[in-house]
Every structure is written in structure tokens, then in C-alpha cells.
């Protein structure tokens, strides 16, 4: 691993990424890969993939993966800085935008725009699932079976989806 990265540069990188991150985790991760691995060479390819998988398996929103990147590069302070730069400025922007947007709720043009955005949103959610399912770069039978099994469980039962994740871990340990 390379030495500690300057905190200022680190914060700036995540701030810049968050301002461009329209569409969520599936948009952010390829961009972060490009910046951290290809552009700056701060992380090795294997380090990035490992931290990404760990972030997937950790509790909370996927975006907290950036804590792992920041921590790897500049210690715990880097981790906290990364998530702050990633979330706070855009949250303030969202707050103000939504205050204005919500005033128009129920007007015809508002309904029309929302009605058009909704299917695009669903397409993005499905694409996130597809990107995550193929994140390892190749389609193996075992991860594909785990993915399909957990999708079926979530659709057909009302049990807590945590059981899927536990089962996925156990199956991967036993058969992997």
C-alpha cells in the first residue's frame, strides 16, 4: 500500500465525485474506480475490488464503501472525511430542491414529470442489481445461483431479507 494521501486532495476527490453522481451507487463506483485506481493509482485493482465487496456486505447504504477507501488512504480521519464530502453538500442541495419541488405536488406538469421519471428509476434499480450481480467480472454458477435464490426469497416471502445474506455467506463458505 502507498503512503497516506493528503486529506485535502482526498476530500476534493469525493466531493467532485458526489456532485457528478446522478443515479446512485452504480454510477459512483465505476467513476471512483477510474479516479482511484486508473487515474491516481492510489489503490491497486485488487484492493479496490476487496473493499468494494466488504462495503457491499457491511450494514448501511452502499455509499459507506467510500469510508473504506478514505480509511485505507488516510486512516479513520480520511474515512470520515470521505463520507462527509460525499454526502453533506449534496444533502443540503437536495433539501432545498425538494422544498421547492414539493410545493408543486399535484399540479399536472409535476405529475407528468414524475410519471416519466418513475420507469427510468425502476430501470436504474434493476441495472444496479445487474451490475452488482456481475461485479466479480465473470458469471460463475455459484454467485449467480445465490443471486437468483435471494431474489426469489425477497419476492415470494415476507421474511427479513437478512436471512438471504446469511444464507449467501454460508452457501459460499460451504460450496465456494
Amino acid at each position, binding site marked *: 500500500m502507498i503512503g497516506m494521501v493528503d486529506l485535502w486532495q482526498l476530500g476534493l476527490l469525493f466531493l467532485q465525485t458526489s456532485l457528478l453522481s446522478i443515479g446512485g451507487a452504480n454510477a459512483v463506483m465505476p467513476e471512483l474506480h477510474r479516479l482511484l485506481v486508473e487515474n491516481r493509482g492510489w489503490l491497486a485493482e485488487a484492493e479496490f475490488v476487496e473493499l468494494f465487496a466488504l462495503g457491499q456486505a457491511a*450494514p448501511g447504504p452502499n455509499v459507506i464503501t467510500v469510508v473504506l477507501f478514505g480509511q485505507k488512504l488516510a486512516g479513520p480521519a480520511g474515512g470520515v472525511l470521505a463520507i462527509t464530502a460525499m454526502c453533506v453538500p449534496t444533502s443540503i442541495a437536495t433539501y432545498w430542491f425538494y422544498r421547492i419541488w414539493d410545493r408543486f405536488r399535484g399540479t399536472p406538469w409535476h405529475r407528468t414529470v414524475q*410519471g416519466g421519471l418513475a420507469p427510468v428509476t425502476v430501470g436504474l434499480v434493476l441495472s444496479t442489481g445487474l451490475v452488482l450481480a456481475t461485479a466479480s467480472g465473470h458469471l460463475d454458477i455459484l454467485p449467480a445461483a445465490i443471486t437468483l435464490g435471494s431474489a426469489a426469497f425477497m419476492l415470494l416471502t415476507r421474511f427479513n431479507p437478512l436471512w438471504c445474506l446469511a444464507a449467501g455467506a454460508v452457501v459460499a463458505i460451504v460450496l465456494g
Partner: protein
Amino acid sequence: MTESSPAASPATCVPSLGELFTGFLIVTVSAFGGILPFARRMVVEQRRWLTPAEFTDLLALGQFLPGPNIVNVSICIGQRFHGWRGSLAAVLGLMAAPVAIILVLGLLFASFGEIPLVRRAVFGMAAAAAGLVLATGAKMAWPFRRRLWPLLVIAGVAACVAFLRWPLVWILAVAVPLAVAFAWHEARAARRASPDR
């Protein structure tokens, strides 16, 4: 704003500030591999803060504004019920615990990550998490099943992002105006069919 929402959506309940915080806190510490499937289950199916359509609308907004989707959604849900205090309660509930947990996990993984067992478990959970996101997408797609243009938009966007790997900005630049045009056309056709509405 809150007084108008029960009338617009009789199925929903109004959470208190504390409920916003604890609701997101509980969901976030029990949600692995991305919080969206768990958040939708809590907000729509269990606590009924929003109807399914309202959730999809808020998520749409969260996705098109810059920043992490679910963080944006929590900001909007909080704002909707309790203004800036609501946003703060929701986003703190969502973020504080996971950040603390992952700082510890990162340190542990640095020490134990080389163990093959740990590695396989992490990859197994990541694969299962992908399935949960797919199922959530399928649930969100279900209300559109009898309408052709939304299904085409859903399939088109998913394919362009996941398989063709085109830049997202370009996909959205084409898909959003197209979808809004379809929705506008559909609304106009509906108005013509029943002019009294």
C-alpha cells in the same frame, strides 16, 4: 405540507421526529449490501409512511439529484414530514451507525481479510445482496406491467446501464425526455377520453 398528505394518500401514517430517526437507524443497521430493499420494505410495507407510488417518486427524485440516492430519499422523507429537523433526524439515523461500524470493519478486515473463509463469506453476501436489489426492482416494476411504454423504458435503461455500460449521463439525457414525453402524451390521451376529469 403534512396536512395535505393524508388526504392525498389515505394509506399512509405520519412519523414523529423520533420515529424518523429510529426507523432509519433500525433499517440501516439491519440492512446489508445496500439499504434500498430494506428501506422500501420499512417505509412502504411495514410503517406505511409512503404509498408505493410515492416511494417510487421520491426515489426518482433522489436518483436524479446529485448525491447518494438513499441519503437523498431520507432527506426528502424527513423534509416532507418535519422540515429540516426531519431531514436531520432521518439522515443521522441512516448514516451515523453504519459509518462507525464500517470504520471498525475496515480495521478488522485489514487484519483478517486474508483468511479465505472470510473472503468467501463476503463474496457470498455480496451476491445475495445483488438478488435483493433485483427483487426490489421487480417489485417496483410490477405496477407498470400492463403499460407498454414504461416497460420499454425500464428494460431500455437497465440494458444500456448494465450491459452496454454507456455513460449514465447520456442514457439519462435521452431516456428522461423520452419518458416524460410518453407520460405527457398518455395524460393528454386520458384527458381527451374523459373531458370531465
